[in-house]
């Protein structure tokens, strides 16, 4: 009986650890996808207008870019209108108090 309980606890713990790790992997994949989408949309804007977009809001307004602000923070730095902006996407931590 004790063995079975112990085994059940181990299996449950392993399952919960896997689920939490999966969540982390998913968010990292989402981060990479958002970064790629930002670069592709910025390049599409450059191809169409001859200048890179001045801000992320410009991409949202004119190119239909959408992302979850609660999950990701975008660092978007423009150096010149004919140079690809410096784009970094960060995953927000959801810590409960």
């Amino acid at each position: 009986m004790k063995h079975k309980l112990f085994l059940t606890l181990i299996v449950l713990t392993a399952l919960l650890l896997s689920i939490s790790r999966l969540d982390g992997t998913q968010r990292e994949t989402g981060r990479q996808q958002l970064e790629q989408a930002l670069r592709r949309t910025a390049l599409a804007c450059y191809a169409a207008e001859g200048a890179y977009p001045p801000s992320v809001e410009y991409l949202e307004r004119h190119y239909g870019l959408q992302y979850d602000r609660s999950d990701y923070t975008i660092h978007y730095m423009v150096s010149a209108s004919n140079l690809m902006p410096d784009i970094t996407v960060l995953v927000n931590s959801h810590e409960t108090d």
Partner: protein
Amino acid sequence: MKQTESRWTALLCLLVFTLFALCLLLVLLTGAEGYRLLTDRGEEHYARRTAARYLTTRVRQAEAVHLEDFSGYPALVLEETAEGERYITRVYCHGGWLRELYSLPEGAFSPEDGEKLLEADSLTLKQEGSLLGAELSLRSGEPIVLWLELPGEKEAIP
């Protein structure tokens, strides 16, 4: 007899569960393959559309356009004036990428210095009178062929 029956029942349950799991796996694999084909097609359309639009926009925006050999790579040279200074933008293919290099005309740069734009294998350029012909071979799909009128080449219509 009862033991044999219960064994057969257990085996049957196991078989049904296995069959269900296999069907589930098959559905997942089919869906994943379909999604992969969809994304590949979307990627190809994006590359073709963006490349064609980029070349068209850049040629139309330039004050003057000419072709040159950039360290062995055919390059499109677009001239512009900014704050009284003359600048050029070289568009060429190098290292599997369509690249763009913005610099002063006398700047000493190499093909690796250009900023990567799109994945492309080669860019072929030719000029026939007032028309510029460009053939861009992308990683997938057929090459893009464009014929663009060079800026400043239009004749006034009487």
